[in-house]
């Protein structure tokens, strides 16, 4: 893990902000992030089939545990591979 020191005034959050929600998913890649709670995959499987039927490219991801925030490497992977991410929770 590499760590840098923030050179700024630290008046804004260090994590980057969300992109605006797109008006359409045409031509975009959507990441489906399973937080690894029971039956979350059921919801995501259904979402995937609906999105693929609409011609959307879908990639699947999973957090190692629902009890912790997604690791920074996973967040980076999603950020560089997708324009949109849907994080799903089922219980």
């Amino acid at each position, binding site marked *: *893990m*590499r*760590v*840098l*020191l*923030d*050179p*700024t*005034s*630290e*008046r804004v959050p*260090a994590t*980057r902000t969300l992109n605006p929600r797109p008006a359409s998913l045409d031509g975009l890649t959507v990441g489906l992030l399973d937080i690894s709670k029971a039956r979350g995959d059921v919801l995501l499987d259904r979402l995937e089939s609906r999105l693929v039927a609409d011609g959307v490219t879908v990639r699947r991801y999973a957090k190692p545990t629902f009890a912790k925030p997604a690791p*920074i*490497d996973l*967040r*980076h*992977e999603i950020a*560089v591979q997708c324009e949109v991410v849907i994080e799903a929770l089922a219980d």
Partner: protein
Amino acid sequence: MPDGWVVVLKRDCPTCTLVEPVLHQLAGAGELSVYSQDDPDFPAGLPVVDDRELETSWRLQVDTVPTLLRVEDGTEVARTVGWLRSSWEELTGVTGLGPDLPDHRPGCGSRSVEWGVEEELDRRYGERVLTSRTVELADLEDEHEAAYARGWTDGLPVVPPTEARVLAMLTGTTRAPDEVVAVVPPDLVPCTVEKVAVNAVLAGCLPEHLPVVLAAVAAACTDGFNMHGVLATTMPAGPVIVVNGPVAQAIGMNSGVNALGQGNRANATIGRALQLVVRNVGGGRPGEVDRGSQGQPGKYTACFAEDEAGSPFDPLAASRGVEGSALTLFAGCGWWPVVDQLSRTPESLARSLAASLRGVGHPKLAIVFDALLVLSPEHGRVFREAGWDRARLLAELEGLLTVPAAELSRGVDGMAEGMPPAMIAGWGEAVPLPKFRPGGLLIAHAGGTAGLFSTIVPGWVSGAGGSEPTTVPIGA
């Protein structure tokens, strides 16, 4: 620390291998603990503590190997470094040590003080002294792209500010990391020595450059220099740093060939560090509070040292009341060469310089703008050989640059620009008006030994309503 004798050594040290038989003697005579920095199997036949991580070496502040300590009740009571039989015998109370060895051999450098290692050990085992927020990067995240993505750069790549680099940078100053250096505009953020150090790392500075950067930040953030105005103006103003005194040579600044140009690390990175502090800490970014209409490349960095040894004049900072290592900050709007390859008398050269200086800002605007004239050595020689000092040249230029106010009035010479008629009416049309206010023309000396060209740095709005050239001492 165990009581008894403690030895720190490494196999990769001829003196450490030399004393191997001595260690076997000591092991038979008392409590001996041996810490090896590079090979836990050295010395053979003795119990050795593996200190390849160098934590014990760091905690004991070992700078030379072998180091021999005597520890009583957990406290060090005696220490010797290298091999000196008499010292080892005195410390241990054991006589006849190493009878086949020479009396004395100096030790070697400890691995814990190798370049870059010491700072990393400080970071790992020392109390955390840094308070800047940490930013974690993903393994696949390019660190240079990460800096761009977070808006930390001026458009050029930056050196990633790791904790180890920032700690190393802080060794360049005696000031505490949490000391506030200045309140940085436009966001008026209190900026600590540590934050300046982080930005100095970004800029590519070496630790010895840091005191100059700290002085520059302090100067820029004074009410007089008015960094907020320099940023917010639509003119292409930016801070120009002129460094005087022994510090310039000590940190390898360039005052000679291409002094105002690229190629010298200290010149390039000190000016850049100031700009990055203004950008990152103060929030002064182009298109936001920085409203420069066109800007100019000196807004990346603008910093040089004065060639004092070759100058016909006293140092710029000294002429402004600060002797020794000091810097002068000037709000400059670009770089403007003056060509005169034919003048061999000071009178002729002064006339050429005056003709060019008249155009600063606009030929028909007087007192509004300051200027920094950087005399080249070949131009400076003309004044030196004629015995002109700074005051003499300034007086000559003032005479040449003073005209009746009526000649500068708006509309005169078919140019709408000029001094307001109401102002001229108030003074009287015949009143002589100098181009520069008193003290508004600064003269420095820099450049290579060939080239009959000097440089004018036109200023931004001068004085209390704009920016005052600001000279401050450079501390430690």
